[in-house]
């Protein structure tokens, strides 16, 4: 019973997260401006990270945790670099 409940709820969560990623990708393609694209890229990163956490619960291993953490770290760094680039036209001054 609880296995079925977990299976369906985790599937539902994954579908919702996939839809969220699709929404972010739509905004990233449509734009209209560069800052919109960077914003959606950042939330795409967060969604991918959460997706990995849900995968981890589903498979019952903690190995996905490291991957999720690394995605989070890289996402932050790249978004900050891109935001800096939008403002100044260069990343390192």
């Amino acid at each position, binding site marked *: *019973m609880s296995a079925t409940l977990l299976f369906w709820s985790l599937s539902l969560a994954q579908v919702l997260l996939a839809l969220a990623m699709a929404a972010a990708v739509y905004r990233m393609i449509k734009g209209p401006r560069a800052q919109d694209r960077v*914003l959606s890229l950042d939330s795409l990163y967060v969604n991918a990270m959460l997706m990995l956490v849900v995968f981890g619960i589903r498979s019952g291993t903690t190995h996905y*945790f490291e991957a999720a953490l690394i995605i989070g770290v890289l996402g932050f760094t790249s978004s900050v670099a891109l935001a800096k680039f*939008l*403002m100044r036209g260069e990343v390192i001054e």
Partner: protein
Amino acid sequence: MWAAVLVASCVVLGAFFTFIGCLGLVRLKTFYHRVHAPTLGTSFGTLMILLGSVTYFSVTQSRPAVHEALIFVFVSVTTPVTLMLLARAAIYRDRAEKNDNVPSPDGDTEKIVK
């Protein structure tokens, strides 16, 4: 059984809030509206999904798994920093192009065309 219900509801609720946040990216009209949307996913969405994960691993491995707290702290601290930088970049670009949807540097919010 109670743990399964708890994990299921936490994960689904968190995924729902994250989804609403990204839906906001699509539905809201201007960049300054959209900059509010992602925090929905990173504050409540992440918290709920990670709570589910903590509960699941604490129950199945019969020892507390708390390292998810790292992800939560990290995401909730870094996302506002990114959004702040992006908002500043956006207002800088809008001013450089002399768009009339942003206030001037002297703080004049009256003349904004919404």
